[in-house]
């Protein structure tokens, strides 16, 4: 090694990792090569099962019992991690490398106060107990915890997810490590909290000049956080290089496809279908000859199927493992040209679904949780209503009330085609039941795993369409054709199908009885990006063909934008803004909507000025007085916000919001062009 240049913070050289499952070794990482220079931030992206987390575990020598490094080396600060003895490994962990992962609640010891846990980091480095506690308090202050002294004596379960993650970050950065590994550190956190955490990481990283390995499935997050990116596919680094170059001019068909799948740049269903990547990931540990991506690649030829492409070093410091990297940018699209008919919404007609002063509170007495408060909405045939909001916003409760899985409070009125709906599904007319169906978030739990697909669909047709015998069989085939499934998918059980196929079955079940309104509860968030696009296409196609209405819930604003005609923004169970999708996204909009939009990381790079929200989402047990958003509102006027509940007022035809600010003071009012920042992953 050259003595003059300091060693890389992390280097993987031909790294192979395999897991032993049911008596056989399954390859998870295949000859991984990459390096992270000192102070550099490196992003590792890939879909589920591609081996991202295994990289982190192998680097810190914390593979599970059945995992082992079967080839290659990992070096941290120039030292081969696999060669270290126990004492050296401990020293490395104590001084040089730190890790932050998903689910901060689990990363903290549940039976030890926060202060002690943070102090331990300093004790390992030789500080006496008292001094360590003092340093711990200072460190908690650095991660912008407002009252470190009180947090010190608390236990993890007493803190919110965002606070817990701050504590974990404090522990990680306390030692000023030369390498910080972040494994999906903000997945599962709310968008506004996520933005806060990302800012914090970015700021401290620069301050401490720590090198970062940032692992995420979210392309937007990586784009905003990293200098360089590696794209992982089935344990193989398919492309690697500077972030800008990768995102703007990808040179591997997989990267190209991945980026095209994203509904972005404010795209909506009217502008046509999304591109998709055909096929699915090879199963973990599959034996593959040739290029690992060949089975799903439009460019694949005999060469690709026979010879594993070597990494090719291109100009501007990037590497692509593709025989045809020069043709990758011109990858043919899989989506046929837009031929989808725009749905004509007749707002003069009776709304297909209407909610009048719908509320729901749980519990009673001192601990009443007001999940939904006085929400009124209308939905017309053939349109999609997007429900947007963070945790505790009441969007799931609202959906459950529409379906009759949760009974609303007295005084709430729900109507379908103008006819009153009973509170609970079992009290509803069969006709109402079949008109209102749902597509759940997770198809694994939404389909009874004990059944054959054929039986699942037959039963739904029997119950919802009242069909039997040959007629039912005929409709069964029509239905599976409708959701683009084949005959061969009928006589298998759900677990034999991939996530995307399972979600198609779930869609078929929902459409068995020709529904008028389908609630889509995060229907793509359990799916990978490449599968998500195909499902969104299917939903939009079905809507155009059948004039069905959707109530679409998602935390992903890009997805919501793509499918929705109108959007309702909820905060703490209150409707904050409601209007046409265009108008809500472009503004003028509610300060909360504005903050939500600004929190979304975008693959176009360079996150625009983010509007920071202070503090935590308040508890729905004791919502703030006046405007419920005033505790976090960056544009709070003053006492009026704490005192008076703002009325929902119409600022344009069909567009109303709940805020004391004047119309021309609202965000987005002057700059409608800011709409494009809604592009997300």
């Amino acid at each position, binding site marked *: 090694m050259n003595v003059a240049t300091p060693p890389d913070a992390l280097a993987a050289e031909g790294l192979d990792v395999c897991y032993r499952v049911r008596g056989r070794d399954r390859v998870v990482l295949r000859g991984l090569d990459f390096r992270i220079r000192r102070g550099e931030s490196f992003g590792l992206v890939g879909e589920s099962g591609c081996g991202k987390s295994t990289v982190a575990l192998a680097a810190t020598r914390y593979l599970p019992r059945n995992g082992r490094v079967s080839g290659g080396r990992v070096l941290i600060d120039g030292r081969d991690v696999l060669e270290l003895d126990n004492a050296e490994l401990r020293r490395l962990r*104590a001084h040089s490398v*730190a890790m932050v992962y998903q689910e901060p609640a689990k990363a903290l010891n549940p*039976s030890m106060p926060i202060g002690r846990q943070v102090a331990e980091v300093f004790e390992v480095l030789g500080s006496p107990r008292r001094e360590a506690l003092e340093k711990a308090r200072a460190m908690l202050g650095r991660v912008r915890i407002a009252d470190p002294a009180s947090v010190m004596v608390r236990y993890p379960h007493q803190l919110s997810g965002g606070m817990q993650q701050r504590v974990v970050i404090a522990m990680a950065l306390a030692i000023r490590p030369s390498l910080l590994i972040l494994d999906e550190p903000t997945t599962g956190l709310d968008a506004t909290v996520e933005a806060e955490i990302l800012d914090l990481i970015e700021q401290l990283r620069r301050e401490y000049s720590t090198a970062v390995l940032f692992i995420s499935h979210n392309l937007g997050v990586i784009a905003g956080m990293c200098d360089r990116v590696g794209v992982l596919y089935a344990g193989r680094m398919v492309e690697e290089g500077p972030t800008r170059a990768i995102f703007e001019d990808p040179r591997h068909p997989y990267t190209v496809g991945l980026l095209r799948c994203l509904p972005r740049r404010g795209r909506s269903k009217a502008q046509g279908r999304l591109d998709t990547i055909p096929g699915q990931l090879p199963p973990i540990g599959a034996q593959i000859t040739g290029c690992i991506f060949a089975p799903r690649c439009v460019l694949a030829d005999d060469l690709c199927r026979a010879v594993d492409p070597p990494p090719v070093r291109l100009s501007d410091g990037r590497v692509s493992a593709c025989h045809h990297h020069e043709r990758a940018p011109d990858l043919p699209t899989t989506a046929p040209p837009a031929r989808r008919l725009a749905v004509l919404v007749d707002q003069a007609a009776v709304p297909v679904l209407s909610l009048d002063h719908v509320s729901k509170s749980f519990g009673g007495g001192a601990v009443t949780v007001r999940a939904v408060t006085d929400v009124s909405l209308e939905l017309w045939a053939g349109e999609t209503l997007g429900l947007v909001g963070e945790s505790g916003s009441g969007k799931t409760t609202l959906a459950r009330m529409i379906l009759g899985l949760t009974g609303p409070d007295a005084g709430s009125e729900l109507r379908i085609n103008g006819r009153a709906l009973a509170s609970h599904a079992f009290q509803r007319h069969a006709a109402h039941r079949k008109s209102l169906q749902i597509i759940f978030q997770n198809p694994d739990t939404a389909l009874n795993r004990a059944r054959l697909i054929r039986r699942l669909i037959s039963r739904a047709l029997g119950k919802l369409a009242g069909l039997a015998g040959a007629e039912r069989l005929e409709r069964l085939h029509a239905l599976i054709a409708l959701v683009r499934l084949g005959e061969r998918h009928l006589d298998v059980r759900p677990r034999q199908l991939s996530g995307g196929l399972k979600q198609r079955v779930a869609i078929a079940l929902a459409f068995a009885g020709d529904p008028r309104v389908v609630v889509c509860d995060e229907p793509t968030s359990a799916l990978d990006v490449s599968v998500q696009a195909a499902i969104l296409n299917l939903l939009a196609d079905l809507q155009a063909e059948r004039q069905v209405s959707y109530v679409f819930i998602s935390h992903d604003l890009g997805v919501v934008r793509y499918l929705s005609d109108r959007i309702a923004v909820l905060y703490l169970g209150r409707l904050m803004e409601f209007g046409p999708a265009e108008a809500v996204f472009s503004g003028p909009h509610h300060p909360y909507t504005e903050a939500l939009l600004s929190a979304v990381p975008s693959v176009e790079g360079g996150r625009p000025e983010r509007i920071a929200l202070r503090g935590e989402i308040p508890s729905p047990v004791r919502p703030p007085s006046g405007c419920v958003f005033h505790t976090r509102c960056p544009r709070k006027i003053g006492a009026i916000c704490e005192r008076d509940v703002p009325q929902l007022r119409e600022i344009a035809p069909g567009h109303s919001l709940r805020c004391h600010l004047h119309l021309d003071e609202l965000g987005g009012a002057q700059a409608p062009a800011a709409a494009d920042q809604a592009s997300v992953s």
Partner: protein
Amino acid sequence: MSGLRFVLRRVALSLVTLWLLSVIVFLGAQVLPGDVGRAILGPLADPRAVAALDHKLGVDRPLLVQYWDWSSHFVTGDMGRSLVYRQPVGPFLAAALANSLKLAAIAFLLVVPLGIFGGVVAAMNVGRALDRIITVTGLSMTVVPEFVSSIVLILIFGVWLEWLPVSASWREGAGAFTQFRHLLLPAVPLVLVLFGYIARMARAGTVEALDADYTRTAVMKGLPFRTVVWRHVLPNALLPTITVIATQMGYLIGGLVVVETVFHYQGIGSLIYNAAKAKDFPMLESGVLMIGVVYTIATLIADVLYSLLNPRIRFGGRE
């Protein structure tokens, strides 16, 4: 839920359990046999004698009256008169309970540390031969009935090696060590049955804690392995074991019935067994209910202890 509210709720639930239990025992001992007098005197007895006995026992009264009479007396410590000894049940029960607690205490003092140690050792070697040996042996011993292991032990240590006395009764005024020697052999079958349970729980808890993310956090801090285990793994791993140990009280008392019979020991187990053989219903009833009371109190104590040690319950949830 805060700590105090948890304890109060738990006490209230225990009272409900005990009340239900008293109803069940009452039904079992006084209603299920149908005609108690007939059950005692046998099918050939004179009907008039049966009626007279029924009247004397008070079982010809309405059920509710009988239940009230029995339960209210039980609460004040009056547990009726034994049909066999023609004396109040209370003193018999008290003496037997004291003896049984002595035996149970020895078994517990042996098995709890052994079980936890075995479980933790197995967990530390998870997947290796030592783990399999401890797990499979523990599991196998758990299901061998006490009378089987008792007899094997008596044969080996009492008859062939003559190391230990085969009877649990000692002479009046024997010292603590002599008593201990006499109780050691009877305690071992109980230990064998309980060891597997406690070791399994301790193992499961430790394996889970070893795999937990917070343990990874601790290891990644660069803490020495010993510190990781003592500070981060064991406190979280063994907390649930506390409640399991208490619920094993039930199995332990069940085992006493057999063990005390085999070793001729005057405890609550042999008291119930003899009462059952002799159809001494007042004695049986009170003995069984007393076992329920002891068990309920033991689990109550364990749950309260658990809540005191577990910060999640002690401090309640997030504001």
